[in-house]
């Protein structure tokens, strides 16, 4: 019977009862980014934590300027600076327990260093001597990830696996505002929410994806709003307020650890330097915008709060700077040594057991190296 023939007998019935699966209200982010510094809430913040954050911010800023200087000396192929974003980097590292995992993007060297990774090991990717200079399992820091947003599903999978094993491990994954447009961002958030995986996503919205401003990246009210559609809370925080980022991330980590599932945190911040040392930021943004953000500098904000409350004086500031200077001097000295590279390493880690094909190529390279050591060779000789 066709639909037309049925028509006489057809009685429209209402659709079966439909109810939203989750009440979206508690998932929605606040209209304004959460702040602590300069508000009454700052009085409740733990002075020890604030001082710790301050010391790390100062180190982080110095790390950024030192690494950028190393690019000028040809010691680093490239460096994507996180100057201006140090509060996010440092808070991301400090909210995690030792057993937790950090999933950084290529810009997040500083988060890895703040978590305790040797600054030289953290830079091997950017120096070009090896892709990852450390054992991810030892530090519970995934390799710095270059393809945008692809580390997010890894974080979800790891957090899920940990929960299946009964370990109360949380994964924190970092991504940029541009990365939120990638398909992997969507798939990761969706998996995380469906599996209720103990994972926290931190978007560092620094205004630009290389040259493309946020307005051309998304039409969403905020990036934190994207969480609601997946069924997880979205949180908006002032990314230059180290105390606020630490608080929001701590809450999200605690929520995840307690079995509450994932959270998407958007930190509103700004990239003061160009995308990398190779980028010319004057082509896509004006000085006044940069200056406005310089006035909201994460170090100045915290320094002001601490000195106002008598938690920091000139000596303390000098001590933090000296400590940062020592770190930079050590980094400079060690980065100025040429890394010892073994070309045979090319074949060492492709498979657990090299294939017969790789063994042949290994022999070829070994012969080439021997010939090189013996002096110049001619064609067919």
């Amino acid at each position, binding site marked *: 019977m066709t639909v037309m023939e049925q028509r006489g007998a057809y009685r429209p019935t209402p659709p079966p009862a439909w109810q939203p699966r989750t009440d979206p209200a508690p998932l929605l982010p606040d209209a304004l980014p959460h702040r602590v510094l300069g508000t009454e809430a700052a009085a409740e913040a733990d002075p020890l934590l604030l001082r710790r954050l301050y010391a790390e911010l100062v180190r982080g800023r110095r790390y950024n300027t030192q690494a950028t200087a190393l690019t000028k000396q040809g010691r680093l192929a490239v460096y994507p600076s996180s100057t201006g974003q140090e509060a996010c980097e440092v808070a991301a590292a400090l909210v995690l327990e030792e057993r937790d995992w950090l999933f950084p993007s290529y810009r997040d060297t500083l988060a890895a260093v703040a978590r305790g990774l040797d600054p030289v090991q953290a830079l091997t990717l950017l120096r070009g001597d090896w892709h990852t200079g450390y054992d991810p399992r030892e530090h519970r820091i995934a390799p710095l990830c270059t393809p945008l947003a*692809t580390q997010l599903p890894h974080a979800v999978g790891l957090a899920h696996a940990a929960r*299946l094993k009964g370990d109360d491990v949380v994964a924190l994954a970092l991504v940029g505002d541009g990365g939120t447009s990638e398909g992997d961002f969507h798939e990761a958030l969706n998996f995380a929410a469906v599996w209720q995986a103990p994972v926290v996503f931190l978007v560092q919205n620094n205004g630009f994806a290389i040259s493309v401003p946020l307005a051309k990246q998304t039409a969403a009210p905020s990036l934190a709003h994207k969480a609601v559609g997946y069924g997880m809370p979205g949180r908006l925080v002032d990314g230059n307020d180290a105390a606020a980022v630490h608080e929001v991330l701590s809450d999200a980590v605690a929520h995840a650890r307690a079995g509450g599932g994932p959270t998407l945190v958007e930190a509103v911040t700004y990239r003061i330097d160009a995308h990398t040392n190779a980028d010319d930021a004057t082509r896509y943004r004006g000085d006044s915008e940069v200056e406005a953000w310089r006035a909201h500098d994460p170090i100045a904000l915290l320094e002001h709060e601490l000195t106002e409350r008598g938690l920091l004086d000139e000596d303390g500031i000098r001590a933090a700077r000296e400590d940062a200077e020592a770190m930079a001097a050590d980094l400079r000295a060690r980065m100025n040594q040429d890394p010892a590279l073994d070309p045979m390493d090319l074949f060492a880690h492709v498979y657990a057991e090299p294939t017969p094909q790789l063994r042949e190529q290994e022999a070829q390279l070994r012969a080439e190296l021997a010939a090189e050591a013996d002096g110049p060779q001619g064609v067919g000789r």
Partner: protein
Amino acid sequence: MTTVALKPATMAQALTRALRDAMAADPAVHVMGEDVGTLGGVFRVTDGLAKEFGEDRCTDTPLAEAGILGTAVGMAMYGLRPVVEMQFDAFAYPAFEQLISHVARMRNRTRGAMPLPITIRVPYGGGIGGVEHHSDSSEAYYMATPGLHVVTPATVADAYGLLRAAIASDDPVVFLEPKRLYWSKDSWNPDEPGTVEPIGRAVVRRSGRSATLITYGPSLPVCLEAAEAARAEGWDLEVVDLRSLVPFDDETVCASVRRTGRAVVVHESGGYGGPGGEIAARITERCFHHLEAPVLRVAGFDIPYPPPMLERHHLPGVDRILDAVGRLQWEAGS
């Protein structure tokens, strides 16, 4: 010695057995993918696993191939051994970013600190009358990616033995399942513990003296049939089943070609940029002085996979293979 009564079993059943045995042997083995749980997969290869091992170990994931493989990466980072199912060959493409940028190179980028023991099961190839996107032969893409093993069984026993080996491997393995052989039966004893087959070895399925047919997966039965048919014309064909495309068993292949002096590579995927070109070049480089004729290829046409009503014209069949064998009576200068 007790003789075991061999019963007919399908390749799909052998694959299921391999998954079940691997899961029973190692709690780290997790099966995941679209519809693999309650339904048992669209080809029923994961049938019963969710019931036996629970939904945490045989998981219906959201419908997202990059997400499936990407989360499997994180699970492997934490010590699990994920076995992911891509529902059909052409639906694995959304996962290529994860496959190529991460799965294939995590061991390398971490200098061996973080191997990823992931098995990626991909039903592949045509001949089942599937509509578009259900019949691709994607092996050349996988072969071109260093860091992956690429394995494809053609017999019921190999389906079991190679899948067990793939799951046990500490490296990622793309396990290509020739979907038109899922229901092919073979004498295999489903009640006996199966044997695990090492990855990377080709086998001679039929010995002969006048030429070698080199093939794998769905084209093996076609080549065996062609070899039988060629007898009438006085050709005694050897048939080599590669079983593993990466690593490649040069030894078995070259030993055969040196014996016979003539070779035809047969596969469904397109010839241009396809596996046959690589195999022919390897043979030429290693066995040039033993060759009586150029190495020939019988491949699918270099076209997007055709609609089902035309696929029989595309797939290498017995006649096309025999035609190539005839061209092996090659004379220099002819």
